[in-house]
């Protein structure tokens, strides 16, 4: 292989990216060396097993990926603004929509939510860490290495270009001979390990580590949503793992699971992909529902309306989520019975979702609403999500779907549910729990600027797409003719996209601005919160709770505040905490090396990487470090400085 096949060449945009990546790397290395921060980076961050720090790293990685995916989106909008534009050629456009979709779902939405879950869940249930802190670090680092493996594809070897769904035969070896598709398979496979481990970890954490007295039906609703999400992860991700492995065999070792030849079944890929893919949609929406519930309840200053109905509707959604996958390929041509069945199950999901919408509205009813930034995102979510949901029911009608399928109507629909559901929730949750992560609030004024610009831009960008779809514009086309008459709506959509980009930049500036100028927290309870995470001190000590809280009902901290128990003094006891470990980051680096070798079919490299993975597992197996105890004196010292 020659060097110009190894590196992607010939495109000025890519050269620009090469230069900026090189400069950023040099800059980071220089700063770390100049300020002598390498040791700090290693001991405080790379080897940490603290759920709060892992959560922060998840969120930071997700914001970076949001930037990458957002740039992809703006490049696509630039190309589609006017007919017959020559900004991107078709291959480059295909690569960009593929990486946009994959990155936004797998490397932005999920890690953002999982990051917030990491920060919040142990605090909400009154625990000092997750059930398996070491595994949590493995989760983060495999996600991170998988994401990096996928991301380097655009400068080394070339990006995948078969769409984030990677349907065969297009994604097969014959029609996609470049290594791009291998990056997709290996990157998702490695990141998928992390997600599966996270699912197991949070399932056990929530079931086993709750503070004494907290019954299942007294858990905060975000904890409930995370529990159900974890269950879906545990059952859905193995399907993706198997499907990715089978396609990897097809591409690297010449098997015929999904090929056209020799008895392969190309549609089986679509089938397996969506058996995972539809539950995946609920994996990224249920935590969002949980966050909105917490935020709406806090800022309407009322107990959540219909708590039990909320829980049961999420359980029903989780069950139904495994029974609807065919609605992603109604046009495959299955018989009427198949399409009718999946059409009806899909429409059924609207029922529990509708229940939740009404519960939020009734929570707001007669509340004394505080319009903070987090609350604004939550309020904007309701009408926007309803638009996305109602058009979803339209798409659920199998016969009508033959018209909507693969048009911009669909693009508009899923952006309406994913952005106004998941992305709004990420922003709302970020503002809401930011004090727990960084011990200061995000600036409210800048936050509201972000909110208004982003929400206006979002609606301007995606609402016209419904009409573009009805006017017949297909998705995944890199250009269109002037005679199609789609230009004016596309111009509107691009303007909306630019506004969303500006909103994002203001958010990033807000992070910097608040870091410099925002007053530090003193109480740990900036929003007059209801659940236990607000009972922790500011900044949150690494052991979270000096005393394990006792729970006497729903909204535990609210009750404690009302009964005057919030600031009780009791004698401290030594706290057992897990030790840091360098194994997760090293193991994941070996995964990266192995995956990179497999992408290029350099088997010596992939085998060497796997041996490294195995070696780190053996080292871990013989590691008898059982953690350490925080002494009473140290707790007292901590508690004095934080009050």
């Amino acid at each position, binding site marked *: 292989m020659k060097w110009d096949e190894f590196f992607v060449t010939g495109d000025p945009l890519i050269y620009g990216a090469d230069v900026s990546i090189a400069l950023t790397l040099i800059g980071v290395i220089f700063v770390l060396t100049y300020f002598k921060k390498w040791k700090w980076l290693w001991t405080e961050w790379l080897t940490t097993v603290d759920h709060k720090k892992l959560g922060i790293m998840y969120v930071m990685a997700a914001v970076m990926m949001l930037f990458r995916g957002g740039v992809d989106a703006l490049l696509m909008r630039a190309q589609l603004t006017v007919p017959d534009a020559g900004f991107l050629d078709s291959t480059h456009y295909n690569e960009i929509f593929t990486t946009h979709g994959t990155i936004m779902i797998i490397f932005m939405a999920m890690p953002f939510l999982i990051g917030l879950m990491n920060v919040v869940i142990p605090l909400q249930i009154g625990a000092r860490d997750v059930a398996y802190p070491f595994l949590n670090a493995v989760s983060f680092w495999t996600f991170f290495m998988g994401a990096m493996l996928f991301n380097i594809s655009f400068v080394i070897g070339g990006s995948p270009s078969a769409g984030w769904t990677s349907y065969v035969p297009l994604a097969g070896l014959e029609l996609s001979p470049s290594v791009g598709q291998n990056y997709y398979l290996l990157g998702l496979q490695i990141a998928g390990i992390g997600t599966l481990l996270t699912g197991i970890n949070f399932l056990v954490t929530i079931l086993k580590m709750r503070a004494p007295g907290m019954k299942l039906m007294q858990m905060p609703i975000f904890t409930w949503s995370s529990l159900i999400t974890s269950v879906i992860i545990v059952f859905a991700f193995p399907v993706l793992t198997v499907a990715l492995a089978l396609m990897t065999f097809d591409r690297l070792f010449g098997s015929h699971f999904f090929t056209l030849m020799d008895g392969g079944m190309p549609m089986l890929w679509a089938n397996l992909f969506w058996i995972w893919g539809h539950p995946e949609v609920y994996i990224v929406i249920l935590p969002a529902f949980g966050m909105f519930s917490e935020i709406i309840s806090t800022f309407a200053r009322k107990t959540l309306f219909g708590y039990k109905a909320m829980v049961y509707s999420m359980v029903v959604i989780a069950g139904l989520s495994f029974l609807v996958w065919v609605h992603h390929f109604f046009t*495959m*041509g299955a018989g009427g019975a198949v399409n009718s069945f999946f059409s009806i199950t899909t429409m059924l999901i609207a029922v529990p979702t509708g229940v939740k919408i009404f519960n939020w509205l009734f929570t707001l009813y007669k509340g004394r609403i505080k319009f903070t930034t987090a609350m604004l995102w939550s309020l904007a979510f309701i009408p926007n999500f309803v638009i996305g949901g109602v058009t979803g029911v339209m798409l659920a009608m199998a016969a009508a779907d033959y018209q909507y399928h693969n048009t911009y109507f669909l693009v508009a629909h899923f952006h309406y549910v994913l952005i106004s559901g998941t992305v709004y929730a990420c922003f709302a949750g970020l503002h809401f729990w930011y004090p727990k992560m960084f011990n200061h609030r995000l600036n409210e004024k800048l936050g509201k600027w972000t909110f208004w610009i982003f929400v206006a831009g979002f609606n301007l960008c995606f609402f016209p797409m419904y009409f573009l779809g009805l006017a017949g514009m297909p998705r995944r086309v890199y250009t269109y003719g002037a005679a199609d008459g789609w230009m004016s709506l596309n111009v509107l959509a691009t303007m909306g996209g630019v506004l969303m980009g500006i909103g994002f930049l203001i958010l990033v500036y807000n992070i910097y601005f608040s870091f410099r100028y925002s007053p530090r927290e003193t109480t740990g309870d900036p929003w007059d919160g209801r659940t236990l995470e607000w009972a922790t001190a500011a900044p949150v000590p690494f052991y979270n709770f000096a005393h394990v809280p006792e729970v006497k009902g729903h909204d535990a901290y609210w009750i404690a505040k009302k009964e005057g128990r919030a600031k009780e003094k009791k004698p401290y006891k030594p706290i057992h905490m897990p030790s840091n470990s360098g194994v997760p980051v090293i193991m994941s680096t070996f995964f990266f090396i192995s995956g990179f070798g497999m992408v290029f079919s350099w088997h010596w490299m992939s085998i060497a990487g796997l041996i490294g993975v195995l070696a780190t597992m053996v080292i871990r197996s013989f590691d008898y470090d059982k*953690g350490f105890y925080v002494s009473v004196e140290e707790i007292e010292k901590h508690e004095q400085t934080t009050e």
Partner: protein
Amino acid sequence: MANNEQTHSHFPWSHVIGFALSIILTLFALWVGFESGLSNTMIVVVVVGLALIQATIQLVMFMHMTESEDSKYQTGTILYALFIAIAVVVGTIWVMSFGMSHM
């Protein structure tokens, strides 16, 4: 937190036996598939049977199915897993026959 102070003094025989059995059953399935010369239907039946045996071994010897004192979660999980497995397998067969075979 890893505060369960279990003693790992005894040799994990059940794990070793389970591991060996899993490998033997897998190799046997391979042999049935490639070398046994049975009819295709018989091969499918035998391989599915071996898979069920192996799943049981895994659940008992590695997943500690019998060791938990809290049977409520166990039953719920197993039932839900069965539901998902049936939905995925039966659903896939139905869908991939394009609804033409009447199941």
